[in-house]
């Protein structure tokens, strides 16, 4: 069962992505594409003649997809949370290297910004993991999921994690790394055809990654989980629709001050409380 979940993770991600596009369109008073649009895109992209700039570019993109998929797989299997975060870091580094390996300004700017956004969210993710560790005395996701919801104890960390979601999902106001209108998608710009589909699919998996970490806050409760998922999903898209992009340095300032502060205060509280 778990292995099936892992296998179909990109498809779930694609569905979430499809629904999201519809929801966003409705918020803007548009009808929007069909829910299955991401898969139609996929079909079309697979049919195209493949072009490549150089083989490093492709290899790193492939490894990015594979590593990210494995990270999600490890979450589903309930492995060590801290390790999952670092495997995810590895996958992000692969993407950054892919961006660097071509001789293209947009791609390089995108990679540099992606690297900076890693600086922005990585400490918060680890603080979240440490928060769970203090409560459960273990980094194992299995054990975290077996407990009842701990969101009330980790509320500030949860708020800090909310800052991470738009960074990872490339949502406004934290989407400077991709910034279509400005740097034409950043790292994505040099990919085409099948290889673009690889990067595209990795994005779907990123959805699963970030939302399954979100679900850890709900513990073993299905009800909390679905409430949390739909609530955050709506909030993220609402914010995406209603805010303007901020610069990457402001993003760093916000997460490294506000985000870290929230995390630290929360850790102090549970550290004293236990």
């Amino acid at each position, binding site marked *: 069962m778990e292995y099936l979940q892992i296998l179909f993770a990109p498809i779930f991600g694609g569905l979430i992505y499809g629904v999201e596009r519809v929801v966003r369109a409705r918020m803007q008073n548009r009808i929007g594409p069909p829910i299955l649009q991401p898969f139609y895109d996929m079909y079309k992209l697979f049919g195209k003649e493949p072009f*490549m700039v150089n083989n490093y570019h492709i290899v790193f993109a492939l490894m990015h997809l594979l590593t990210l998929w494995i990270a999600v797989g490890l979450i589903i299997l309930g492995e060590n949370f*801290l*390790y999952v975060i*670092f495997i995810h870091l590895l996958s992000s*580094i692969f993407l950054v290297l892919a961006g660097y390996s071509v001789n*293209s300004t947009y791609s390089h700017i995108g990679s540099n910004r992606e690297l900076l956004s890693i600086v922005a969210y990585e400490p918060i993710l680890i603080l979240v993991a440490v928060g769970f560790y203090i409560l459960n005395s273990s980094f194992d996701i299995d054990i975290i999921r077996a407990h009842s919801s701990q969101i009330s104890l980790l509320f500030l960390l949860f708020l800090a994690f909310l800052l991470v979601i738009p960074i990872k999902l490339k949502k406004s106001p934290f989407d400077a790394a991709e910034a279509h209108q400005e740097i034409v998608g950043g790292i994505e710009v040099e990919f085409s055809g099948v290889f673009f589909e690889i990067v595209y699919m990795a994005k779907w998996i990123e959805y699963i990654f970030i939302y399954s970490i979100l679900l850890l806050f709900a513990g073993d409760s299905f009800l909390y989980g679905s409430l949390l998922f739909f609530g955050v999903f709506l909030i993220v898209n609402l914010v995406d629709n209603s805010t303007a992009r901020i610069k990457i340095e402001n993003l760093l300032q916000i997460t490294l001050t506000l985000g870290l502060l929230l995390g630290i205060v929360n850790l102090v509280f549970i550290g004293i409380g236990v």
Partner: protein
Amino acid sequence: MSEYVLMLIFLPLIFAVTVLFNSLRIRNIATYLFVSFLVIISLKLFFTTEIIELNFNHLVHLVFLVLDFILLGYFVYQGVKYKDKLISLFAIVQIALFIVFLQFSSTILSNDIVVDRISRVMLLVINIIGGVIILYSLKYIQSEEFKACKKNLFISILFFFIGVMNLIVTTNNIEIFFLAFEFTTLCSYILIRFRNDELSIQNARKALWMNQIGGIAILLSLLSGIYYYDTIYFDTLIQNINGLFLLPISLLVLAAFVKGASIPFDKWLLGAMVAPTPVSAILHSATMVKIAPYLILKIAPAFSPTISLAVMIFGTFVFMTASLLALGKDFFKEILGLSTIALLALMMSIAALGTPEAINICLILIVFHAISKALLFLQAGVLEKVYHLKYLQDIDYLVSRSKLIVFFIVIGFASLTLPPFGAFIGKFASIELIASLINTNIFYILPLVFILIGSVFLTLLYFKVLTKLIAQDNKVYEKISIDLTYIVTSFILVGLLCFGIYVSYLYNFMTHLEILLATVLILTTFVMLFFVNFKNIKKVSAYNCGEKDTIKLSAYYFEVSDKYKELIFYISLFLIGLIVYMGMI
């Protein structure tokens, strides 16, 4: 077994003399033999499990005493010669303190040499990685414009350095520790000023006076050790330690932070960059700075909980700020240098915990940091000698010129930040360890946050350097052949890194699945990069939104303003002062 220890300490001195007088060919062959000899002995020692203890006889002690005076006298002479008041002042203070020290004698006696597990690991690092660097310098020094005898002298000093290092990590007598400490200061002084130009001499002098602060701290620690505990040995001092009188310990911590070039004392290590590159390689990886975490490991059992926490907070603070400062640098060696300072501070803070798990983590960090840094510095040397590149902004499209060098650099950086390599495992385990301590003392959150921020800064640093390295263009570059010595020594280090993955597999810091998975991922990447050719796919040049301008790539720099640099300096000065003060009350 004890004869092996003596061999490791004294044979390098004989080797040093031998390579001094020989022709190039004999020198090279002899060096290969000597290095393999040292490696074999250190391996043999590593696989014994007993604790080796032995004493020097009276005569050797007398020789050491005379050497102490000669050495300090030489420092005074250098100070007078270059009209450097600080050097002569510190040297004279040391002579005075040493004479005072000789007036006292202690009654609680112990062994001069004690080789425990920590020492054995250190011996392994010093002899294997130091040996590889010596082999590399055989070739490197030939490309410098020195006279033949001076080239031999270079190799000879490196051997001497290794001998002194072997002494410093095996001795249990703080007096001998002081002598060896001063000898490493001497070695670094001579090596840094090896080029003998104005800048080299200036930087060497800086290294000399800063390191003498460490010497003074050790002498004061000796005196207070005799005063409070009536002993000059590490083990008896630690056994009899009383939480009320920690001055000997906190002074040794100060000495460690001086040697480890932690932030208020960081200038000497960065100044050392002017020397030939193997000097940086050996200072940063196998010798000199590694004394710092070793010393903390050794004395950590005597720490009171407050001192341990203070050392930890200070160490992780330096880890974070040194990584931050490195983000603004453009000189390749300087980037490596600041990241060494950062990682050393991390090792020291983990060592300060003193639990068996912390000791293991610290040892893992020491070993793998040494391998990675040696590898990176060897590449810095190749870049300088073969490609005449020193600054990041000049290193464009390196991958189109030499895939191999880029491979080594990428491996070097990846091994410091990413799974499954040793240094990563050390960092991973230390986060886990500190997280488990937050329940006991809430202040551990501070080091935790410093480590998290510091390690993302380091990740940013390492991979932003790659911006220009791995970008490919379509120009055809003239092929430059790289000497076999450079390549073979680098491959040995890469091999050691891979072997390290196996070792960490044995030690269970992470589950086997976790290590295997990351290994497979990294391996697949390299196999695909080097061996898979996408022949059927049409190649196009980069789209770049149709822009036709020539592209000039550049990396990000994050310069810290002088105001904050000063602030960092004073905060760290305050923290180290606080630690010493804690010992006094």
